[in-house]
């Protein structure tokens, strides 16, 4: 069964350092999402890509977060500089064009900022 791949699974970094997360969506899925999930809460959308284009980044803290999907396949989410409040699970999801509401999630990257 096809799955969304993410790496690393866990990341510990110090405040003010840069971190990057990688996501490989299910093959053929044109839409890719990055979510942030704070412990005890539901996922919140950070950025949505349609192919290589950003279609929604309204909740992305653009002063420190950036995301790219250069070839419309895999994607990278970067935080620079990391802050203590960025500690969370970062989830990637993907969906196909015809059923955008059917989103499949990866295992996530657990980020701890010290």
């Amino acid at each position, binding site marked *: 069964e096809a799955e*969304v791949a*993410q790496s690393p699974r866990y990341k510990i970094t110090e405040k003010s350092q840069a971190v990057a997360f990688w996501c490989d969506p299910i093959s053929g899925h044109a839409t890719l*999402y990055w979510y942030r999930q704070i412990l*005890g*809460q*539901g*996922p*919140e*959308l950070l950025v*949505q890509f349609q192919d290589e284009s950003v*279609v*929604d980044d309204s909740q992305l803290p653009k002063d420190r977060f950036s995301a790219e999907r250069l070839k419309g396949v895999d994607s990278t989410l970067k935080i620079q500089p990391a802050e203590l409040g960025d500690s969370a699970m970062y*989830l990637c*999801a993907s969906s196909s064009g015809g059923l*955008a*509401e*059917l*989103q*499949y*999630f*990866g*295992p*996530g990257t*657990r980020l701890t900022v010290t």
Partner: protein
Amino acid sequence: QQQVKQSPQSLIVQKGGISIINCAYENTAFDYFPWYQQFPGKGPALLIAIRPDVSEKKEGRFTISFNKSAKQFSLHIMDSQPGDSATYFCAAYHRGGATNKLIFGTGTLLAVQP
């Protein structure tokens, strides 16, 4: 109007009992209502979903009941098992404008006692 309110926050059920989790929404533009199951350290996995033209959907031991007029929907887990112990999130899909978005509830931590 974009919120999905979920209750209870946590739930303890005996093995073989019925687990019931409730969600409510305000925005009538939502047109797809999935439930996700999340185990510790894993990404959310789609469990079951319903569209507002249907009042009930059943898949195995899992049933969604949907009340369009009350803007409420609920997940029923029949014959609850210890393996069902996880966090459950309701969600609602907003289709409209330039972007489509999945809005999550705050989650319910279910513990099924043997």
